[in-house]
């Protein structure tokens, strides 16, 4: 990369104020004097610096393209029909076009996190100064920024140090986005390599964002005992004024809580959040409450409970102002990326803005000063509360809702718009006969997209009817979620590093991503519980973390109340919001650094090779929906961490699938002997969509196997895989012979069955190598 580092040293200077000696100052440069780790081969890698590594992975995991559109309509030559082997006017093929769109999506995702990080860091520097020390974990964390160290080869120490990292990220994203222009990259695998690079940049920016906010706002610092906080509709005291905050960038929410604190208003107002701002503000204050993930927006707004809505950025419904207007709820937009068409009132007096919002003279205001937002949101909510007098349960009464249902003509256009093919029209018919049961069941699987309403030929507010039918369920949504703890402690890594690398902790499962679930959020919680009981380490973040919290066992406890928050076997570790995902990839990287003592500094390929061959981590984005989810996944892929998505995930247009039947694909180099050794398809896929929760669970167990597993570890992992396959898919798996390397790998309790299969498959013993995919360059020692 080009560098902007400037370092100037002046021995002596005469000025009007006198003589100054020995001045030294730097611009765009991080202090590195305290870090003696040698620099690796790829600090600040360019978009092709890691291409060989990417192509090594892509040789095993070839793209299986699932075109979601047969056309290209990105330039005026088009639309071009790319079906089959046709080329577009620019010469592009269907595979390249699919990879190009994946790259575009990943760029959108990475740009979003990077922009978020930039806005946050700039704000925090303004507030706390550029010399504010980074402290994501106190004495428990020495490797404060593993992804930054790994990718950039620098060790940031202050908020100001993060700016250079973001300079690099922004430069890379610009170049990556340029690759999608007509007449640029046209080779599918080169485009895929750039997707991986985008993902790596995404994790870098996420790390920057989270360590900055954890440090400056004193969010939980790698704390396994982060407090349990309230989540769910039913936790809100509707007799108090209620503020709703939606989005991802927490400063306005922080200012709301600070204003309440400074004015002795804590406890008199409910501050509620949806999506990641909800998560991050509960990391700041235990008094704040989360309503739910992204899909709770419409149902909560239409409940009429919020007295004011404050939106920042990302994953906010673009029609939020329309929804709020229908209930006369004022809206404050706080991000330049999401102005909502509202007038910029940043320069106006607070009193005037509040008067306008309360009187209804304006629907909302665009205010770029978070501190001002804090005051205005609180004071407006307090004045709006009497106006909203009696809190409505909904915009319709139950009787009105039934009358609406009776207007349904059974045209089924609602069902034909529903992404989950829910039987809405049947439920409407029943509701019209005063039977809410079916509609209430639909609530559980509804993703809140309201496409049903858009399709309705009778303009029936279908989603509102679903909410009314499920009224009791909503009221009972009161759960406990462990606040996002941030990073994983170095000592935790030391304790579990060995068992993970040897396979004796069967794996790390990260439940991440959005809430576009195929069959309701309970499936995600059930998966997390299953694997926590199997002593995997469970990590959660963002909407997935919230969804898992919105589940209770027979004793009424949420998973976060059942399992400890430690990064250990059987732990349920909520790292925090979307940007906290970097702590999950960071934990994998820290295993290589802290446990295996590999150099991190600018040493991406070696560390990724280590993680790929040794760390049995699997990402599960069951409800992945967004472009950010695409870039987050891509960041895991480049580290060799497989990702499983739900059935909607096929709409990401391509999978990265291994072929277990191609033996030649599954050889590694044995670093001890230099020999090539067959290790079986571990992990078999890098990106795969599965159909059901049951299939996902079997896949998680399967993809947790790694070449480095000891026999004890492999036997344990095979036990989970076989047990789940038998229980959930009904039979023994037929590919066991591919995963057994030595007789000692065979789980003792299943020996008889497995030996019979091995005989039938003409299985032969092999060896357990010291695995690596990196070919030693000629002449290197």
């Amino acid at each position, binding site marked *: 990369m080009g560098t902007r580092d400037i370092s100037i040293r002046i021995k002596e200077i005469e000025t009007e104020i006198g003589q100054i000696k020995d001045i030294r100052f730097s611009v765009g440069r991080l202090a590195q004097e305290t870090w003696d780790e040698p620099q690796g081969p790829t600090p600040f890698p360019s978009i092709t610096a890691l291409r060989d590594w990417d192509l090594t992975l892509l040789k095993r995991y070839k793209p299986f393209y699932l075109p979601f559109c047969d056309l290209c309509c990105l330039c005026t030559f088009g639309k071009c029909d790319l079906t089959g082997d046709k080329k577009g006017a620019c010469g592009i093929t269907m595979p390249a076009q699919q990879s190009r769109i994946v790259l575009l999506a990943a760029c959108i995702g990475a740009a979003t996190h990077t922009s978020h990080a930039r806005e946050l860091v700039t704000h925090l520097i303004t507030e706390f100064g550029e010399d504010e020390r980074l402290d994501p974990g106190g004495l428990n964390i020495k490797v404060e920024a593993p992804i930054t160290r790994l990718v950039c080869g620098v060790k940031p120490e202050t908020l100001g140090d993060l700016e250079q990292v973001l300079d690099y990220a922004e430069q890379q994203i610009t170049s990556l986005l340029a690759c999608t222009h007509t007449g640029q990259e046209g080779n599918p695998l080169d485009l895929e390599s750039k997707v991986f690079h985008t993902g790596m940049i995404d994790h870098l920016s996420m790390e920057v964002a989270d360590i900055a906010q954890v440090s400056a706002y004193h969010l939980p610092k790698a704390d396994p005992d982060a407090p349990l906080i309230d989540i769910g509709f039913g936790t809100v005291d509707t007799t108090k004024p209620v503020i709703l905050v939606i989005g991802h960038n927490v400063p306005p929410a922080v200012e709301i809580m600070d204003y309440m604190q400074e004015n002795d208003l804590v406890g008199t107002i409910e501050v509620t959040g949806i999506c990641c701002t909800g998560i991050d503000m509960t990391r700041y204050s235990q008094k704040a409450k989360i309503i739910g993930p992204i899909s709770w927006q419409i149902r909560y707004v239409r409940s009429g409970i919020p007295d004011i809505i404050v939106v920042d950025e990302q994953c906010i419904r673009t029609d939020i102002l329309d929804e709020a207007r229908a209930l006369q709820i004022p809206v404050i937009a706080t991000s330049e990326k999401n102005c909502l068409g509202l007038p910029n009132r940043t320069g106006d007096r607070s009193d005037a803005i509040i008067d306008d919002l309360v009187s209804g003279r304006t629907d909302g205001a665009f205010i770029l000063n978070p501190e001002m937002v804090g005051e205005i949101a609180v004071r407006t909510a307090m004045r709006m509360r009497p106006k909203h007098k009696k809190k409505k349960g909904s915009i319709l009464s139950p009787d009105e809702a039934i009358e609406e249902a009776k207007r349904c003509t059974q045209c089924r256009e609602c069902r034909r718009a529903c992404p989950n093919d829910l039987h809405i029209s049947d439920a409407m018919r029943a509701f019209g006969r005063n039977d809410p049961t079916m509609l209430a069941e639909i609530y559980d699987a509804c993703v809140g997209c309201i496409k049903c309403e858009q399709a309705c030929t009778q303009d029936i507010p279908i989603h509102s009817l679903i909410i009314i039918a499920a009224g009791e369920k909503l009221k009972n949504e009161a759960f406990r979620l462990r606040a996002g703890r941030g990073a994983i402690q170095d000592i935790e890594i030391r304790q579990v590093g060995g068992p993970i690398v040897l396979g004796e902790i069967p794996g790390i499962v990260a439940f991440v991503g959005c809430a576009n679930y195929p069959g309701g959020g309970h499936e995600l919680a059930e998966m997390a519980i299953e694997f926590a009981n199997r002593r995997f380490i469970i990590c959660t973040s963002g909407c997935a973390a919230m969804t898992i919290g919105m589940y209770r066992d027979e004793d009424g406890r949420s998973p976060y109340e059942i399992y400890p928050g430690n990064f250990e076997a059987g732990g349920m570790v909520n790292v925090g919001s979307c940007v906290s995902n970097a702590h999950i990839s960071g934990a994998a990287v820290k295993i290589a650094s802290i446990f295996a003592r590999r150099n991190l500094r600018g040493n991406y390929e070696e560390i990724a090779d280590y993680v790929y061959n040794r760390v049995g981590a699997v990402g599960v984005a069951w409800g992945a929906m967004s472009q950010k989810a695409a870039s987050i996944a891509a960041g895991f892929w480049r580290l060799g961490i497989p990702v499983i998505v739900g059935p909607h995930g096929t709409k990401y247009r391509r999978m990265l699938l291994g072929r277990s039947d191609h033996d030649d694909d599954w050889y590694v180099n044995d670093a001890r002997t230099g020999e090539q050794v067959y290790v079986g398809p571990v992990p078999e896929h890098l990106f795969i969509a599965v159909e059901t929760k049951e299939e996902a669970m079997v896949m998680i167990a399967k993809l947790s196997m790694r070449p480095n597993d000891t026999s004890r570890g492999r036997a344990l992992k095979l036990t989970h895989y076989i047990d789940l396959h038998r229980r959930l*898919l009904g039979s023994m798996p037929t590919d066991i012979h591919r995963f057994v390397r030595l007789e000692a790998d065979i789980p003792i309790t299943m020996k008889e069955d497995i030996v019979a299969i091995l005989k039938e498959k003409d299985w032969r013993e092999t060896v357990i190598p010291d695995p690596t995919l990196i070919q030693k360059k000629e002449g290197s020692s």
Partner: protein
Amino acid sequence: MSQDAWLTAEVAGPKKASLITKPEIADAMIRRAKRPIFIVGSIAAEIDLEEKKLIDYIILMARRCSIQVVATANTNSEFLKRNFTPDAVMPAVDIGNRLTDPTWQGVDGKGPHDLAIFVGLPYQMAWTILSGLKNFAPNLKTISLDNVYQPNARWSFSNISVKNWIMNLEAILGNREA
């Protein structure tokens, strides 16, 4: 009968499925195929077709027409409950990927499949996988036997009623000896 996707927004590209307007079309496709294969998704065991489930029709058809069966997801359990053992169990995208490989010798290793019959998968998952096959498996014919139009198959029913669907499946079965 129309060629409208069941999910209204899932419009197809320029190349879209021909309609199976009568059961003889599907029957003829199966008869002509040398190496047909069923890809059966999890919903097959949930769909009621009067006194039977969809999966029961698949089993009858597979037996009578000698069609190999790949069970995706947990469909395998439902087959086994009915004393039917599928030829393979694998994720839908995995079998889809293999079908694009002209050198793949099929689930029994005896040669490439020439006809893939999709049924019982989530609609959009079948839509995308069939799109992959439409574009990257030029020698493979595909049929969707669900009662909703799948534009990316080579042949598909229109959006038909359950009654009509049963009639079609019965007619295909009726042409074969029990």
